[in-house]
């Protein structure tokens, strides 16, 4: 890790709906304290929040690692969970496997992954069924 790099990891627990969103809130507060542009912070925060809600709704546990360099902000999300059998299908707006309980929270409408992609400059998703899913989301400073 270079001196110009900030790294912080947040643990996220699956099905903990009371605390869902705390990691993303922490990420947003950290970026605000760094004095980054509000437009960039909002994009990162929305992408992080969607990813965190997905993790809480579907996975057993996971981590969200915030990495800030002079050039970009990256969030690496790794979870232990059921994985995604068909990523292309999951990326389609409106496709969802959410339960009624998840929908009662106001999520699970099949907009999460497309909204992450919309708010980031680079977005990579990999998944293994019955193992877990990994997202790497990057927003450039300029």
């Amino acid at each position, binding site marked *: 890790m270079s001196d110009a790099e900030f790294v912080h990891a947040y643990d996220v627990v699956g099905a903990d709906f009371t605390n869902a969103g705390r990691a993303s809130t922490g990420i*947003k507060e950290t970026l605000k304290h760094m004095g980054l542009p509000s437009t960039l912070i909002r994009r990162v925060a929305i992408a992080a929040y*969607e990813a965190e809600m997905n993790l809480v709704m579907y996975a057993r546990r996971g981590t969200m690692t915030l990495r800030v360099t002079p050039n970009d902000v990256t969030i690496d999300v790794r979870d232990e969970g059921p994985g995604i059998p068909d990523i292309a299908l999951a990326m389609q707006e409106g496709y969802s496997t959410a339960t009624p309980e998840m929908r009662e929270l106001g999520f699970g409408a099949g907009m999460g992954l497309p909204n992450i992609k919309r708010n980031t400059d680079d977005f990579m998703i990999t998944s293994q069924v019955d193992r877990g899913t990994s997202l790497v989301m990057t927003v450039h400073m300029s």
Partner: protein
Amino acid sequence: MSRTAETGGKTRAGAGPAGVLSLADVRAAVNGVALWCPDDAPAVTGVVAADLMSDVLVDARPGFVLVTGLVNVQVIRTAAIADLAAVVFARGKAVPDDVIDLARQMNVPVFASHESLFEAAGRLYALVGNRPAGAGPRRQA
């Protein structure tokens, strides 16, 4: 699906500082009660009405007021993440203490209204969509 309206007609450019809505305007329009609102409440740039928080994250812009029939802590977290000006809980639903406590903690003004979501959204649409730039002094919520 959510619906949005912005101040100063259909474009953000029309909302000059003197024409910006206050939360007092919003509260009056929906016959609302302030459950928590700080003295330095932000100005309102538009309105979004939705029960799906993912739709809010797609459609809302900073400074929007969220009108919703959904009542839980995720509404407050969504409002904070998306830099919304306030939340109006419609349909007269009881708002639990943990929701109000989180709103206070995250500095998100919250109001309760007995109007239906349709009625509240309609009144705010009329207020926001027809408000000319430069109209009226700002009031405190």
